[in-house]
């Protein structure tokens, strides 16, 4: 049920320019998985489910409605009639079957395949025993039925992921390996031009199935733009939204000028920056040491260093995430207490360790602040500032005692507490090469998590969230991480851009929700 009311002041037409530093890797919804192409793909494609603009509330997308069976194992989606792909063909249930099977096909090499693990037949397909997902079937051209192998409360969110976008088989096959360069979807925009390394132009899909949107005729993404330069261009009136945000070097200048500050929209983000500690190796196998680290870090000062563009964290979940434990206190900044704890743990003289960090600003700076805090309680941490790939490698291999997650940190794929658990705190991720860099594996919590996620009945939502809160509280008790802050989003727009502020800090569409913003002139 869609409760969203469109902006009555919205004007149709016009075009905007967005800049990005990095080139767009791909627009294939099964593959694109960086925050830059995430929102682009969102505008080109639709999935069965969608979010209310500017919120984390689910709403139906290509599915007009859905039904969940009693046992929570069967979902039946009724498709919206008359939806056409950009190539003019009407979308049917067969397309849904094809699209979901495509993502989970190992040959697709989709980084999102793992999200679909709850669907029946997933394991068989992964193992190469089946060509497609047996759990997804087309009942009739307008109806799709999806069977799960276990109840999963996050399933509808998964159906809203880009990975679950519906693609036309004939276009995918025609493009061969290059579907990511010639995307065809049902989305509000279609790709008009792509000059490698320079720009992408999106054009309004006038046949879009949602009434009245999008407002913009055209969006131009200019890539390869240094953030500082992008901001200079914005100030010069050449750019409408700097996709990489306001660079730290310009932040103060912008905020000090009321005319510019007025055009900055601030909002929360489903993000947590944390320090992992490898619990399998001394000294971090000692919970007191990990707690001491939590107490030693002065989160307020670190927040100050990044110009206050974050809120200090005391638990893994960000405040805007359902399940956030409001009254959890975490570990207060207490160097003296930390020292005592260390002494108790037998490290009265401290110890030496390494802190890995990704090498892009401001991460090495944050790591240095953490380093100084640790030094104050006697822990000598030498910094290993490396390229992203090298840090990930060290984290996966478990050779890094401590890692500052910045730059690689978890931004939730979907607004559900479960999304923060399995790969980065659960046992599944604690394997060699996994993303659980603390290698923290608590079987008991894993069981609890499974239990929580089996509560797929909407009526049990509150109960489920409570269970998740409990899980994260326990994680904090074990101090597998030292959460440091939750980044806030600051999006700047040109004076001519209109639309609700929420659209500029849309939690699932970064930097802006392209479908609903408009230009005023």
């Amino acid at each position, binding site marked *: 049920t869609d409760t969203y009311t469109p902006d009555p002041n919205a004007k149709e037409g016009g075009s905007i320019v967005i800049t990005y530093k990095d080139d767009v890797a791909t627009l294939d919804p099964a593959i694109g998985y960086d925050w830059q192409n995430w929102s682009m793909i969102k505008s080109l494609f639709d999935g069965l489910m969608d979010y209310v603009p500017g919120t984390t509330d689910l709403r139906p997308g290509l599915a007009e409605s859905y039904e969940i069976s009693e046992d929570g194992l069967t979902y039946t989606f009724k498709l919206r009639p008359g939806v056409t792909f950009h190539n003019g063909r009407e979308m049917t249930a067969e397309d849904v079957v094809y699209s979901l099977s495509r993502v989970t096909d190992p040959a697709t090499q989709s980084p999102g395949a793992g999200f679909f693990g709850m669907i029946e037949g997933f394991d068989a397909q992964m193992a190469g025993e089946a060509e497609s997902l047996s759990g997804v079937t087309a009942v009739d051209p307008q109806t799709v039925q999806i069977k799960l192998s276990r109840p999963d409360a996050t399933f509808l969110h998964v159906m809203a992921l880009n990975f679950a976008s519906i693609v036309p088989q004939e276009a995918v096959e025609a493009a061969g390996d290059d579907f990511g360069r010639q995307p065809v979807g049902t989305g509000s925009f279609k790709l008009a031009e792509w000059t490698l390394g320079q720009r992408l132009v999106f054009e309004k899909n006038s046949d879009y199935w949602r009434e009245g949107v999008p407002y913009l005729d055209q969006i131009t993404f200019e890539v390869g733009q240094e953030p*500082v330069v992008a901001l200079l261009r914005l100030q010069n009136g050449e750019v409408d939204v700097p996709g990489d945000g306001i660079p730290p070097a310009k932040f*103060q200048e912008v905020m000090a000028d009321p005319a510019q500050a007025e055009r900055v929209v601030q909002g929360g983000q489903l993000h947590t920056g944390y320090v992992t500690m490898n619990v399998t190796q001394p000294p971090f196998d000692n919970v007191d040491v990990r707690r001491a680290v939590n107490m030693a870090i002065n989160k307020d000062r670190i927040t100050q260093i*990044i*110009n206050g563009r974050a809120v200090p964290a005391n638990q893994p979940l960000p405040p805007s995430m359902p399940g956030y434990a409001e009254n959890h206190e975490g570990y207060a900044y207490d160097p003296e207490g930390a020292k005592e704890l260390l002494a108790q743990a037998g490290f009265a003289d401290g110890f030496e360790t390494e802190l890995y960090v990704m090498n892009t600003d401001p991460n090495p700076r944050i790591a240095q*602040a953490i380093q*100084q805090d640790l030094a104050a309680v006697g822990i000598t941490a030498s910094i290993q*500032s*490396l*390229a992203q790939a*090298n840090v990930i490698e060290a984290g996966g291999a478990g050779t890094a005692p401590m890692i500052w997650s910045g730059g690689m940190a978890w931004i939730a794929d979907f607004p559900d507490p479960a999304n923060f658990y399995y790969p980065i705190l659960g046992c599944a991720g604690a394997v060699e090469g996994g993303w659980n860099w603390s290698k923290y594996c608590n079987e008991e919590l894993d069981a609890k998590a499974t239990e929580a996620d089996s509560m797929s009945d909407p009526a049990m939502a509150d109960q489920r969230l409570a269970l998740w809160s409990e899980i994260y509280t326990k994680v904090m008790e074990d101090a597998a991480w030292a959460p440091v802050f939750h980044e806030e989003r600051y999006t700047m727009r040109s004076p001519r851009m209109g639309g609700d502020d929420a659209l500029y800090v849309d939690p699932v569409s970064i930097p802006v929700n392209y479908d609903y913003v408009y230009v005023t002139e």
Partner: protein
Amino acid sequence: MSDAALPEPRRRSALGRLARRPLALLGLAIISVTVVSAIAAPWIAPFGRDEQLFEGLTLEGAPMPPGGPFLLGTDLLGRDLLTRILYGARTSLVIGVVANGLALLIGTLVGVTAGYFRGWLGSLLMRFTDLMMAFPALLLAICLAAIFTPSLWIVALVIALVNWVQVARVLYTETTSLAERDFIAAERAIGAGHGRILWLHILPHLVPTIIVWGTLGISTTVLLEATLSFLGIGVQPPEPSWGNIIFENQTYFQAAPWLVFFPGMAILLMALAFNLVGDALRDVLDPTQRGRG
């Protein structure tokens, strides 16, 4: 000049002649100050090297401009810039002098050997040089630095390993033409061995070129170290170097220009100082230049 004996001009030691050039003295002074401040940094620096001072940042987290207790201002973590620059001299001197020197050494060794011996050894060395030249230096540096754990000395080694190539090329050309000169043939005719010819009769003639490349190389290597730091494979934070101070803060050239200006000046001054001394040294070491300004 007639055959009549000229009165013997008074001869001074090379150092003595160097001392008579005001510009060279200026250069020497700058180098000495740099070296002394690098060594004495713990005593003369107003603050601790990595000390992130509470007063060093505004409430909004902005660095402090020069003035007050912070002579050259503070950096983005609230550390005193003067202190960082004083300590940074250590790294930058090692890079500029050791890494650059090592690059010169390898380049000279390869270029001179190849140029003097020619033959299969020369071909082999030059083909290897061509190979190294065709290899993107930055990529090589990145790979090497990623394979070894970064430390100042590894970084110095990596820089030396990518920077010797041009020197080798240039010296190769020069050596080949030098080896053709009559006086080298004359040396061989009196029975001088290769070692003697290379060391006493070829190398001294290459000194001017080596000095030019050496002095120009100082700033290039210091900046290359910074690029590597920026890639996360240079010296690791919080150890300062002039280059990485600039690189960390380069986007702030408008908001906090002092963070770029002062370390930049330090690099420039050091490079200039070495150049002044190098120029003077070159003239002093070249007897044919004697007495000409």
